[in-house]
């Protein structure tokens, strides 16, 4: 089918990495001078202004800080969607969609795991995908 052949638009660019085993990790920057971690990747450190930064893969799992089921948003997003902030162990908080989840079953601080998901589509119908998180099911964690 043509839909499968059509490549999705990736919103995250080089801010996400997908391993051969399917593991998805967000990619940020780590400052070579002061050690600060930043997401998304940047060319300059917001702590010490150094440009000595390297790519840094972040943990695939984090904890849910808060969320909202969003019913109104600009065109293109699949509605409703779950917007959330996820805290990664590297002292980084990430805004992300929560996918494959029952909103009623979400809990504060629950473990969530990164994956790639389709979040909407552009005007020409091309799928828009990016990183997202999903609750870790028992046995996974």
């Amino acid at each position, binding site marked *: 089918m043509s839909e499968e052949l059509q490549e999705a638009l990736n919103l995250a660019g080089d801010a996400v990495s997908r391993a051969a085993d399917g593991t998805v990790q967000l990619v940020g920057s780590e400052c070579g001078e002061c050690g600060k971690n930043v997401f998304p990747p940047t060319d300059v450190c*917001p702590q010490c202004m150094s440009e000595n930064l390297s790519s840094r893969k972040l943990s695939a799992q984090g904890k849910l800080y*808060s*969320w909202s*089921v*969003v019913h109104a948003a600009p065109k293109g*997003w699949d509605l409703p969607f779950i917007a959330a902030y996820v805290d990664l162990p590297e002292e980084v*908080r990430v*805004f992300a969609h929560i996918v494959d989840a029952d909103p009623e079953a979400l809990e504060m601080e629950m473990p969530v795991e990164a994956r790639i998901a389709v979040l909407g589509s552009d005007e020409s119908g091309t799928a828009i995908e990016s990183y997202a998180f999903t609750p870790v099911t028992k046995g996974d964690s």
Partner: protein
Amino acid sequence: MRDVAIVGAGMVPFGKYQEKTLADIAWPAVKQAVEDAGIKKTDIEATYCGTALGGMMSGQRILKKLGITGLPIINIENACSSSSTAFREAWITVAAGVYDAVLVIGVEKLTKFGGGTLPLEKEDWEVSHGLVMPALYAMRARRYMHEYGLTENDIADVSVKARKHGVWNEDAQFRKEVTREEVLASRPVADPLKLFHCCPSGDGAAAVVICSAEKAKQYSAEPIRVIGSEINSGKYMTGYRDMTSPEITLRGAKQLYEEAGIGPEDVDLAEVHDAFAIAELLYYEALGFCAKGDAAKLLADGETSVGGKIPVNPSGGLLSKGHPIGSTGVAQIVEIVRQLRGQCGQRQVEGAKVGLTHCTGGGVSGFDHGVCSINLFAR
């Protein structure tokens, strides 16, 4: 720095004026402020015009209608705090003795975008991933509910109070009361926030004339003194942060109270940035009107209604008066001026001597808010 006073105030009713230009929306507010001040237009030495999305040289386009030109006209953008920032900049110039009399305008025409949520900056990472302002406030609300036991009823009651006040304000966009049940039954926007938890989109303008306290008496019988003016940007935080605690408002309020030499207990009324109902509760605490976690109780006890200890948003606030974003900061100041003069009829806060305005805005990833401006006024 010299003492500064407000000698004239004006605004147009907030609403939808799609068929009018930005300049035609705004000039009646400016004319009203200038006439209220009783100042000759040639005595105005500079103008600061706040607008977020009004387009290039909004101030010039407005002022040419009234022939107030050939003076410095400075257009200021700071999202929802655009005109409160403009006020702060104007205040600096008068306080520092650069000018004696300055006009401040706030203006916005949101109907030009044809409705929906406010257009945010697409280059922002979180916006590019779907963050909208209601969702940001909704996540604050959910976390606050989790940590402090706030209920959906409590949040709805903010809207109920706002609408009640708005009924008494001829300049308000909404002038009809709503019940808690109606709020909770309104269309979901970003769970737990419903439509009636969100300020409406619209158009509007407001203006004030300020001058040195020394010269104020020559223009106005009742100049309103500016006893403190503060502005800040948020602190960029890439890591964990407490989203139930608006750091920029907390920091700004602390700084302002110190500068003005008064405390929250000295404030008689406040106009705060209730763009979404949950926000007003967070700001009760950040502005020191109650302790952390006690906001819902303060509201339930009626203390923030007209007639209470510290009436908040007697104008109806953003939820009821409306929020044409660049106009809001100056419109808040117009309300405080009218309250301190005792001109507010049914919504009058009796005996009000000290008023506060609080305006904060902007969705930029990593900031609590991009900007916050707080002012204190006294008669």
